[in-house]
């Protein structure tokens, strides 16, 4: 009997290529063993959500992907993380170039205390992506449009970025991240400081960005993970407990710890 295929089934059928591969990753903060033997494959052009209780290592692992942990002197990372098969710890790969390929959006909206235009233009400028002023204008406009912010700010591009509302600031930060056309966008609890309406806008935006970017998002809201992601990974005490399609993770996870966490039974 022919059944019409659901969109979920269709999405499951086309398996996207793997973008990020992590194998046996261990992270130490001084004596503290923050992540233990983590291995995960993140598919391209999809949203992967990391969930787990505070201190479980999900943000730590996220910060490994663009080597933001390098800025913490006591942090030590072992194991292999590769983007498109290229080891990010390879000595020939400059960390600055890596971060241009792997953008990041932080928990608290953190626009630079400069104008909206300057916020978006900064990345392309330092990476030399815009040879002329017109090119830069075009990049700024395209980035703001892609971040669904253009209509709201096009008349006041030279006003302070910090004068925007929290949700607009966060979209400005997303525009700033995509202005350098990265391949991967890491989002560290991007909505935790926003109200529900602003959160909804960001979630809508994430869904649109999925077409062009590989997105990894850390979130404390399980509903948000369920809404925006295609795959979900559950972290607990520095261990990747379980990873799989989001529907499976939220309806019928294999591991009891995942089940306890998603249903709100964690002690």
């Amino acid at each position, binding site marked *: 009997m022919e059944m019409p295929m659901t969109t979920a089934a269709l999405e499951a059928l086309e398996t996207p290529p793997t973008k990020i591969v992590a194998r046996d990753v261990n992270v130490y903060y001084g004596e503290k063993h923050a992540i233990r033997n983590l291995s995960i494959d993140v598919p391209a052009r999809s949203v992967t959500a990391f969930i787990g209780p505070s201190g479980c290592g999900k943000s730590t692992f996220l910060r490994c992907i*663009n080597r*933001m942990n390098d*800025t913490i*002197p006591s942090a030590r990372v072992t194991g292999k993380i590769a983007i498109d098969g290229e080891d990010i710890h390879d000595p020939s790969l400059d960390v*600055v*170039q*890596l*971060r*241009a390929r792997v*953008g*990041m*959006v*932080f928990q*608290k909206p*953190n*626009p*630079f*205390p*400069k104008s909206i235009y300057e916020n978006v233009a*900064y*990345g392309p400028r*330092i*990476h030399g992506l815009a040879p002329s002023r017109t090119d830069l204008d075009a990049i700024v406009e395209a980035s703001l449009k892609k971040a669904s912010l253009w209509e709201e700010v096009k008349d006041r591009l030279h006003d*302070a970025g*910090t004068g925007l509302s929290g949700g607009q600031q966060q979209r400005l*930060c997303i525009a*700033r*991240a995509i*202005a*350098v056309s990265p391949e991967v966008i890491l989002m560290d609890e991007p909505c935790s400081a926003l109200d529900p309406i602003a959160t909804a806008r960001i979630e809508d935006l994430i869904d649109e960005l999925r077409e062009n970017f590989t997105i990894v998002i850390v979130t404390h809201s399980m509903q948000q993970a369920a809404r925006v992601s295609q795959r979900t990974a559950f972290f607990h005490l520095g261990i990747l407990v379980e990873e799989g399609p989001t529907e499976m993770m939220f309806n019928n996870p294999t591991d009891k710890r995942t089940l306890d966490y998603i249903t709100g039974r964690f002690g």
Partner: protein
Amino acid sequence: MSDIAVIPARHPGKAEAERRVARRYRAERRFRFYGIAAIGFAALFLVILFADILSRGIPGFFHHRVGIQVTLDPATLDIGDKRDPDALRAADYRAVIREALQALFPDVTGRAERRQLAGFVATNAGAEIARRVIAEPYIIGSKINVNLPVSAEADLYYKGKIKAGPGQQLSAETGVLLDRLRANAFVSQDFAWNFLENGASREPEQAGILAALVGSALTMLVTLLLCLPTGVAAAIYLEEFAPKNRLTDIIEVNINNLAAVPSIIFGLLGLAVFLAMFGMPRSSSLVGGLVLALLVLPTIIIASRAALKAVPPSIREAALGIGASRQQAIFHHVLPLAMPGILTGTIIGMAHALGETAPLLLIGMVAFIVDVPGGVTDAATVLPVQIYQWSTFPEAAFQAKTAAGIIVLLVFLFLMNGAAILLRKRFERRW
């Protein structure tokens, strides 16, 4: 489900609760009163200080002048037919003034009285006539009206600071003569441009603050140029780049200790290192600036580090997150945000340096500087040292000069701080 234990709190009676609340409010009112009293106390002293300095210092900015008519007779001037500037400068203007005064007091005949009469006009009065004669030599031979500064004693008498009579600083006869001078000639009070235009002098009516003012400005310039870049660079390195290890800990502790070292030690250091070892010019504002820079550096480093630390790490992360290098993140984003704090630290440090005396005494900036210094290597003195020197002079007229010097120092300080605050406001306005 958790069973919540009943909290064994014993609620006091209504009366007791009210007493407790009243006590709390009383304690709060009391504390506010202490605070207001402390501020009032400080304000009172400030008012007393300012009132005292202003009342004593403002007369120091003014000087009495006497308007008399002098005859520029070439014979009295003892110049013959020569009219070249050198000859005119060497002419005997005192004689002209003496004659004019005698004409005013025909009854004064005694030699001693006449000399006293001539002494009522300041020693530099002749120089004023000379300037005019050199500018317009054709007035020689004619009678001109001049307004000449009176001597320091006469000035103090007219200001009412000293009295004449038995047991006073001036004899009764002198008092009578000065009163008569005021009655016969036009005696007026005028702004003493001398004070702002001249260097140091043993003569109080000629002593000026300009040399010390320029010396202070040059010294401050050297200090600022040296310690701001050095201090900020050191702070950035320590805060952003230096590995956190025992060595940097030791450096940090030492910088903090350095801020507490008595300033005279820095003077000794300057004497031993800059003068003895490097042979730099003695009493120059260059050496003074170097010594003060050493003194101020720890303050600026500590303030700058605090300002850098206060910049939210999210800004750093944002910059690093889009691929800025560490240096780009610091210079494009962190430093501009830390600038107001750094400038505040600099203001405090520079104000501290401006008022510093002890280390400068040791490197010879206490010298008697008559000429205004033209560069950082010229011998110079600074305002606080000049004030200190004047306060040690026995002449009564120097007391007013001391207070006037303090006013100049304070005005300089306000201007410097004002400039720095304006600069800080400019930085802050960039969001």
